[in-house]
């Protein structure tokens, strides 16, 4: 990788790694497509079938997404490590398993085996419950994400509002994680997280009003369907083009809610020593760590649904695959941002949230109202 001054010319490795990468991507896309086929089959059975009974669908959906999102979150750490490594002129995990594919497995095995320390001075019940309370809501929100036109684990009227409502419970768990272990750095991190979450919740919801108003519905499927069709025959009618302003507000706000660079002050290593996870070890730490990644997937999914036409796309691959590809695109974009940006200071974050994003979101809502009043009817 050009690490020595002499081998500046030898950056090219030959075609084999790229062939293997492409093959891997093909396999991954195939697997995603297979899941999509199962989903569309279930969706096509009609409301009377056993599989579409709300209870059955809820339980199966929960179990399935627990597995997929759990493993996805775990492998997202690997993806992030590999991706960041490539940005940073190094290789990333590549020793355990082919291309380091077993690295998350090893991490999980180790962390399961790790001793679980509850300090003497800790509020032990709060400390034990905190990861669950923090983790559960961000998991619950996958119930309302429309993966295909016919498959939503729980199709409800309030769709995206449910997602936002459930997300807003996460700070409780994080504040518990800050309070329980009786550690100043935990507390500082949790306070920063809660303040940040409160500040960016409002612009986030205000930015969501745009797509909701266009679709005249809170339902995810309806919002996606409202983006069907093309302008001039080739530009998809995604909300991101007419509502670019709102999309940016939403993107920044959900990046801040996820707590990643440049907004990663809740777990800034050099300032508050990993923040609210500082005192956690073992599986509890895993849950708090996965929180970030599940949040990331959920935020990206919401962005795709609201602004990037959800599962819509040209027909050659199925809807689920389109959704996943768009999701991966947004996630990789956020990882790239993480790799090259600096961290913002706490007062700068608050200023951005309250003084710039909030007025901007309000103005955006006004514009969309005027626009809709002029165009609709």
């Amino acid at each position: 990788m050009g690490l020595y001054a002499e081998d500046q010319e030898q950056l090219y490795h030959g075609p084999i790694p790229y062939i293997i990468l492409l093959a891997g991507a093909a396999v991954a896309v195939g697997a995603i497509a297979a899941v999509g086929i199962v989903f569309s089959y279930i969706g096509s059975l009609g409301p009377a079938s056993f599989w579409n009974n709300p209870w059955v669908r809820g339980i199966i959906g929960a179990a399935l997404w627990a597995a997929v999102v759990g493993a996805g979150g775990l492998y997202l750490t690997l993806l992030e490590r590999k991706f960041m490594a490539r940005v940073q002129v190094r290789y990333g995990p590549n020793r355990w398993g082919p291309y380091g594919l077993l690295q998350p497995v090893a991490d999980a095995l180790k962390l399961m085996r790790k001793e679980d320390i509850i300090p003497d001075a800790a509020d032990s019940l709060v400390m034990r419950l905190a990861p669950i309370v923090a983790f559960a809501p961000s998991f619950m929100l996958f119930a309302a994400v429309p993966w295909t036109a016919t498959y939503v684990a729980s199709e409800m009227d309030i769709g995206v509002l449910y997602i936002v409502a459930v997300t807003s419970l996460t700070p409780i768990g994080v504040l518990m994680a800050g309070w329980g272990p009786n550690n100043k750095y935990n507390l500082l991190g949790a306070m920063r997280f809660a303040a940040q979450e409160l500040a960016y919740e409002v612009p986030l919801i205000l930015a969501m009003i745009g797509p909701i108003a266009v679709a005249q519905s809170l339902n995810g499927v309806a919002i996606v369907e409202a983006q069907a069709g093309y302008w001039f025959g080739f530009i998809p009618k995604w909300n991101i083009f007419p509502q670019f302003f709102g999309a940016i507000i939403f993107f920044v706000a959900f990046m801040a809610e996820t707590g990643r660079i440049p907004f990663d002050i809740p777990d800034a290593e050099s300032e508050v020593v990993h923040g609210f996870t500082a005192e956690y070890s073992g599986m509890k730490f895993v849950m708090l760590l996965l929180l970030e990644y599940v949040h990331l997937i959920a935020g990206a999914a919401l962005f795709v649904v609201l602004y990037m036409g959800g599962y819509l796309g040209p027909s050659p691959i199925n809807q689920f695959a389109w959704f996943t590809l768009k999701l991966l695109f947004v996630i990789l974009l956020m990882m790239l941002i993480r790799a090259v940006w600096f961290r913002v200071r706490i007062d700068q974050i608050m200023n951005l949230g309250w003084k710039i994003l909030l007025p901007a979101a309000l103005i955006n809502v006004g514009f969309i109202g005027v626009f809709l009043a002029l165009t609709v009817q």
Partner: protein
Amino acid sequence: MKEVAADLIMFFIIALVSIFAAVMVMEAEDIFHAALFLALLFTSIAGVYILLTAEFIAAIQILVYGGAVVVLILFAIVLTNRAGKVGEQSLKNLLMRTAAIIGFVALLVQPILKTPWPNEMIETTGLNTYAVGYSLFTDYVIPFEVVSLALLSALIGAVYLSKREVGQ
């Protein structure tokens, strides 16, 4: 019939949880625990709303009370010094509290029994978000605006109170 039974079971579970949470808000020795039980209470009340198919209200309940209010309370608690536990409760205290609660419930018995509760199921269209929005901006537009003005004045007052004077 089956679904009604399932709804009833869910209702009783949620009701028990919310009563337990409500009592624990009072009884918890640690103020932080009390705030957490408050969060449980608000969330379980959202469950009651869902059983009444008022999903929009449930979501708003969680968003505003569970998400914002409780988080603000918790935030205020963690900003203060760690006060520790209240200490041992005396028997007299306990008896007095029990008496007060029983008295309050007794007061409620009369109105509960006398009120003519509607006994039939109300048909819902499945578009109650739309209905809420419609009635909010037609029938109740004046109260809505008045409330928003009141909230705005409270907001400005809070900013004024907490703002530090220059040079301080």
